[in-house]
């Protein structure tokens, strides 16, 4: 394709710069042709992409991150309602117009509120569970330490309680048998 389009161009260049040396002319021609082919190639790619438009998988990529504001906990990619079909069309149009995924999602948040995203960027939501776990872990560790440090109950009564070695009697027996075996 590039040959057909750019041959007259290069001929004109040849005519204009007749006084150039053959060598420099050849370099110029090579440069010119390759630069223009490159531009044509890019142009063609853009044209082809535009003709095809975003694929349904492209639409789903964005739709999977958005939640239907009508139904509960269903992403746009899976929702069969009329509203969601329209919103999917909007995603397709905006993708075709060259918007990024993030821009499209921001657009939906602007128009329909925080509710449409499944991962609301609210620090309190995200930080409480890990902080709670960490706090519980620290508490537990402190508790275990204090238990482990405490002296054994020294009362006669406590000593008289048979230790529950039966609890792991079975394991002990197993270990014994295994040891004997080896």
């Amino acid at each position, binding site marked *: 394709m590039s040959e057909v389009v750019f041959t007259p161009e290069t001929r004109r260049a040849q005519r204009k710069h007749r006084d150039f040396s053959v060598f420099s002319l050849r370099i110029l021609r090579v440069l010119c042709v390759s630069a223009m082919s490159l531009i044509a190639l890019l142009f063609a790619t853009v044209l082809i992409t535009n003709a095809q438009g975003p*694929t*349904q*998988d492209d*639409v*789903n990529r964005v739709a999977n991150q958005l*939640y239907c504001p009508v139904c*509960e*906990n*269903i*992403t746009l990619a*899976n929702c*069969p309602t009329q509203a969601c079909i329209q919103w999917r069309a909007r995603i397709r149009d905006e993708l075709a117009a060259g918007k990024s995924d993030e821009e499209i999602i921001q657009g939906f948040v602007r128009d329909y*509120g*925080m*509710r*449409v*995203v*499944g*991962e*609301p960027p*609210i620090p309190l*939501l*995200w930080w*409480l*569970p*890990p902080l*709670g*776990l960490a706090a*519980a*872990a620290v508490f*537990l560790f402190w508790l*275990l*330490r204090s*238990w*482990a440090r*405490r002296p*054994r*109950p020294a009362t006669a*009564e406590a000593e008289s*309680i*048979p*230790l*529950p070695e*039966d*609890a*792991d*009697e*079975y*394991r002990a027996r*197993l270990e014994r*048998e*295994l040891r004997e*075996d080896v």
Partner: protein
Amino acid sequence: MIADLGLWATVLAFACAVYAVAASLYGARRKQPVWVESARNAVVAILPLLTLAALTIIASLVRSDFHLAYVVNTSNRAMPTFLKVTALWGGQNGSLLFWSWLMSAFAFGVMLRKWERDRELMPYVIAVTMITQAFFIGLVLFFANPFAKYWELPSGDIVSAALPPAGALPFRAAEGNGLNPLLRHPGMIAHPPMLYLGFVGFTVPYAFAIAALLTGGYRSEAWIRTTRRWTLAAWLFLSLGLLLGGRWAYDVLGWGGYWGWDPVENAAFLPWLTGTAFLHSVMIQEKRGMLKVWNMVLIILTYCLVILGTFITRTGVISSVHAFARSEIGVPFFIFVGAALVGSVALLISRLEGLKSENHLDALLSREAAFLLNNLLFMGITLAVFWGTFFPIFSELFTGTKITVGPPFYNRVTGPQFAALVLLMGVGPLIAWRRASAKALGRLLWLPTASALLLAVLLVLLGVSIPGAVVGFAIAEFTAATTLSEFWRGARARQRSSGEPFLTALSRLIGRNRRRYGGYLIHLGVVLIAVGVVGSHFFQKESQATLGRGESMSVAGYIFVYEGFREIPPKPGDDLVRDIATVGLYRDGRRLATLYPQREFYQATQETLTPPALYGGRMGLEDIYLLLVGWEQAGLASASFKVYINPLVNFIWLGGVVFILGTLVAAWPNPAEERLLTPAAERRLALGEV
């Protein structure tokens, strides 16, 4: 009128429940066993009464008696009989009656067993179970009455009421609305009853715990041993309910998955989490007499979460605070949960003195510490799920902003904790009670650790580049290895000492130590489920395309060819239209199967359902999940399809089966083992110290 019979049976059941509460408490206070016996008889009477009530609703549903509002709302004439029967739990009012009925069955069972052994506790067990029972029957009678009928007022208005308003004439609808299409699935037979059985089942250990607190029985561990099997039964049903729910969602909902972190799913999952923590931590109390307060906290929490779960499922409070305000049962539920929580915790605090640990932790490296870590992780997951589920309510109440907390939150926050839990599951059972030696533990663990690391390296070399998946599979392999080695070591030891063949030794080993090896089987089931979850979560592929007839799409090496389309009109009297596409499935040039993805359209309610066509590819290692998304109305020339490839998802169902088998093994009665596991506390009882 047959439903009137049911209504009055329910009224009588309510009276029995209220009477049982009063009589049992009076009998206990006045030390007059005759009153307690009378209360017990009242409890026993509730089961037949509610059975009658439930049967009258079922009969009305089967006979399509459209005088009843509930029958109109949940059925129509065209539904097959089994769906008409399951419609008993297909709507709010009927499901609350169903809940009450299952509750009465559990209470009936408790009354028949172990009466002599726990004579002290029984009055309060009756009181607590019957307060719960009376609450639910009360909801059925006063707020969500399935016996309500349609009446035509003199003004011409149609109202629904259990008793005829003055001057009203009976009104009969011509046809019912039919059951929600999502519920017209064989899974509907088993999933809700299992879930509800699990829910009501946890009332029993809770009732015993509260009774123990009230009577002073908390000083011994008797209540835990009495309720161990009840707890396991409740837990079994709840687990089954969750598994069946996952399978049902996978087969019906058509979004390619089995678990969506939906508020209703979470509501059922929360009591399972605390219940599982409870099942583990009572072992420390049984064997070492420790963690008494904590176990009380866990069972109280589980009970409250059960009530809360029923409340969430039935009121739709999560979807909107306004749904809660509109729901008639919202306020009574809220009050009941609050009262149960505050009352139980207050009672617990007043008894703290008697709940001191009998033993102390001997070492940080011990089974006790491992159990505590297990509890920490379960509570961490519970907190995260609870927070994610209820945050939208807080957000709407306090800031007025409606938000959605979707799967990404739960996956990211609970994923690592689940992974840690599975890892702990591999280490914990190998750690000795009281004090473990790191050296002995290392001897047991080095081989599984090495094999897990080897697997991780292998996976990376094979091109698995997702860190979460590599870690997940390696952890699963590690835990599977340590758990299986427990079976192997045990069976070998038995074989060598008794000379039995290996398989005989293995089965006798399991039979003689059902609790231990049943538990290990459950752990193996969890490992399989974990493999399925990791595989389907990280490697799911998804693609959608519109195909003309004869055109094909290619996903993950499979080729789908759109071959034909047909529409099946509704059968006479039915409203279901089926549109079925024919798709040829190919791989490597070979035709594997013909798939029939379809869309079901229910004309009466204008609802649609897209059940997937499923095919097990690569010997069942990956599921092909094909959906018919849409089609061109004119000429049916083209149709849109969505394909999910779900690797390893079948491991989840396989793991579920192993899990349930393990629970049955662990719960199966074994008198010899019961004697072997005499806890320290009982021995003290025998020594006359209490």
